[in-house]
């Protein structure tokens, strides 16, 4: 079987049609057929369908979507909400922006079906502030959908009402964490909430809320159209369906490759035309910088939720950043730490202070003034952040630190013992960032 047969263009397929963001073109390409079909079904049957499909969240955690929908209490007299997490910002991740830019109606259609299933009459798409062109297209699509009767009162004559608002964030990575996102959407600083209670019962405005990623919701119309069995014909037993792998870095053709879950990095690199000339694979992230780095020996790891976990990392957002022997893993980790330090919301002391100090230790090492003790300090700090913060940002920050020390300790020692020339100057040490 050729590697090309691993490609499964489903969610990305309409991107080839340059005007698919317009409602008339979208409708010609099966658009809104799923909404029409779903609104004739019983909401519980839709939840069962999504459960049967095995769809798991595409935002990184991989939680079963149907199960999440099923947690919403029914007949509780409270308003229900659907909130789409479109705050794409995990370093390396770049799949939701093209989807919303080139096929915004598929997300809206998914919102209609999901809202109907969980009995929500209001839905919000919380889109990253910087994603301005995606937001333009999305807002335009929402207007078109209202005009065509897919949104608003009595949708398609079924008696179902749905209002959909596109809400732009304002530049805070933490708002991609679902409870921080809810706080932000309520008009507060985006800081994570203590759980329990979970959003399923106490989400937006303390009401039952489903928070799903863009890719998750955009998958729903296809499952409604093609059925659970068809969806499960792609991917692996526990990780069903297609997934958009976002390849970046030292490969010949970076980009978006939608394949069945479980493809390997070796196959992805082959799809991407191989490594760039003169570059040899050294380290990579399976799904963003918050997922522990893997090394060249993991090139045949199946990239589904189970396979990557067995290799000691996390599938995450399948943001596959590929680095070569010409990239410095210590510097790469340092730069990610600068990011986590900047983006820590400050609520939890281990994350706020730990990242601040780890950045300083990295600067010292990269300036040629590190000590062997610094490596113990890094591990100790990471150990004190891991599991001791409200949300995953803190845990995520430790991923590149501990994994790079696990696979590439020698690279650190080379700085400390003077075999690698300092990468940062004394100016950086003074805190020039």
């Amino acid at each position: 079987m050729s590697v090309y047969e691993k490609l499964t263009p489903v969610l990305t397929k309409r991107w080839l049609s340059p005007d698919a963001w317009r409602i008339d073109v979208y409708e010609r390409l099966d658009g809104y057929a799923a909404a029409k079909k779903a609104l004739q079904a019983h909401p519980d049957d839709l939840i069962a369908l999504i459960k049967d499909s095995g769809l798991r969240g595409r935002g990184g955690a991989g939680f079963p979507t149907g199960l999440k929908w099923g947690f919403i209490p029914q007949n509780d007299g409270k308003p229900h909400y659907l909130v789409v997490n479109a705050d794409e910002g995990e370093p390396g991740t770049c799949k939701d922006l093209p989807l919303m830019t080139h096929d915004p109606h598929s997300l809206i259609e998914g919102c209609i079906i999901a809202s109907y299933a969980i009995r929500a009459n209001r839905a919000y798409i919380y889109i990253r502030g910087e994603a301005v062109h995606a937001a333009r297209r999305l807002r335009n699509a929402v207007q078109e959908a209202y005009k065509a009767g897919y949104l608003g009162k009595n949708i398609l004559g079924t008696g179902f009402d749905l209002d959909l608002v596109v809400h732009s964030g304002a530049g805070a990575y933490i708002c991609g964490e679902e409870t921080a996102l809810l706080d932000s959407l309520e008009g507060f600083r985006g800081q994570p909430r203590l759980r329990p209670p979970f959003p399923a019962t106490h989400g937006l405005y303390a009401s039952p809320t489903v928070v799903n990623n863009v890719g998750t919701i955009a998958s729903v119309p296809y499952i409604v159209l093609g059925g659970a069995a068809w969806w499960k014909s792609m991917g692996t037993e526990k990780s069903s369906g297609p997934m958009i792998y976002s390849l970046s870095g030292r490969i010949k053709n970076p980009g978006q490759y939608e394949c069945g879950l479980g493809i390997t990095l070796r196959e992805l690199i082959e799809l991407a035309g191989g490594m760039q000339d003169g570059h040899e694979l050294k380290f990579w992230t399976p799904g963003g910088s918050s997922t522990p780095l893997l090394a060249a020996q993991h090139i045949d790891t199946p990239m589904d939720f189970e396979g990557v976990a067995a290799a000691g990392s996390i599938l995450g957002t399948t943001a596959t950043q590929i680095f070569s022997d010409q990239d410095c893993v210590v510097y790469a980790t340092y730069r990610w730490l600068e990011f986590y330090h900047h983006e820590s919301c400050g609520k939890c002391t281990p994350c706020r202070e730990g990242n601040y100090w780890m950045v300083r230790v990295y600067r010292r090492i990269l300036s040629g003034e590190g000590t062997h003790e610094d490596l113990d300090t890094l591990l100790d700090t990471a150990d004190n952040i891991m599991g001791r913060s409200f949300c995953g940002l803190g845990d995520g920050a430790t991923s590149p630190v501990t994994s790079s020390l696990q696979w590439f300790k020698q690279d650190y020692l080379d700085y400390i013992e003077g075999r690698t020339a300092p990468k940062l100057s004394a100016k950086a040490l003074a805190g020039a960032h």
Partner: protein
Amino acid sequence: MTVFSQEIQDRAKEIIARYPEGKQRSALLPMLHLVQSVEGYVSPDGIEFCADQLGLQKANVGAVASFYTMYKRRPTGDFLVSVCTNTMCNVLGGQAVYDALTEHLGVGHDETTADGTITLEHAECLAACDYGPVMTVNYDFFDGVNPDGAVELVDKLRQGERPQPSRGARLCTLKEMSIQLAGFADDRDGAVADGVAGDPTLAGLKLAQKHGVSPKGFDINTPIPTAEKKA
């Protein structure tokens, strides 16, 4: 006399109406974008305006405004130039781009040129790693940039030109962009249609097309199983 016109006050009301009754605080983020569209930053007047509209204390509004990177605390230039210096863009040359712009413009992070045209910043991951290194002007993308190209770009901006972004819409000013961020449509004729998908976006699709690959067995008439049938 307030700097916020009747039109802005009407827009503030429109923003509030997007959220359920009694939950008007949800309007705060878009409203901060709105006041930024008037002054180019969130000024003390802007904070007071939001507080008045939403029945909040100024301190509550200030605490939120200072949390988010996109709300600027000092007057900005017409063009916000953001260079991604997160790891991937960084190693692909983004740091060199940022350093070159710093030197050429004579400003550092979150600083504005004396002529008031450009505010420079280094940005965290902008979700376009397959196009790296990237920079944005008022958040629209310029892909695969290098130091010389970036310097040329900002020089054009300073000379009053508006180069076309690689994928997004034609450029507007940061104030004009902030109206869109507040949730209002881009009413420039044709701007929504601007921008085509680049090669990386279509990389996998074109391969599948070339090799005639598509998922098998997709039938849009597949019935949705009902609970009765299953039982």
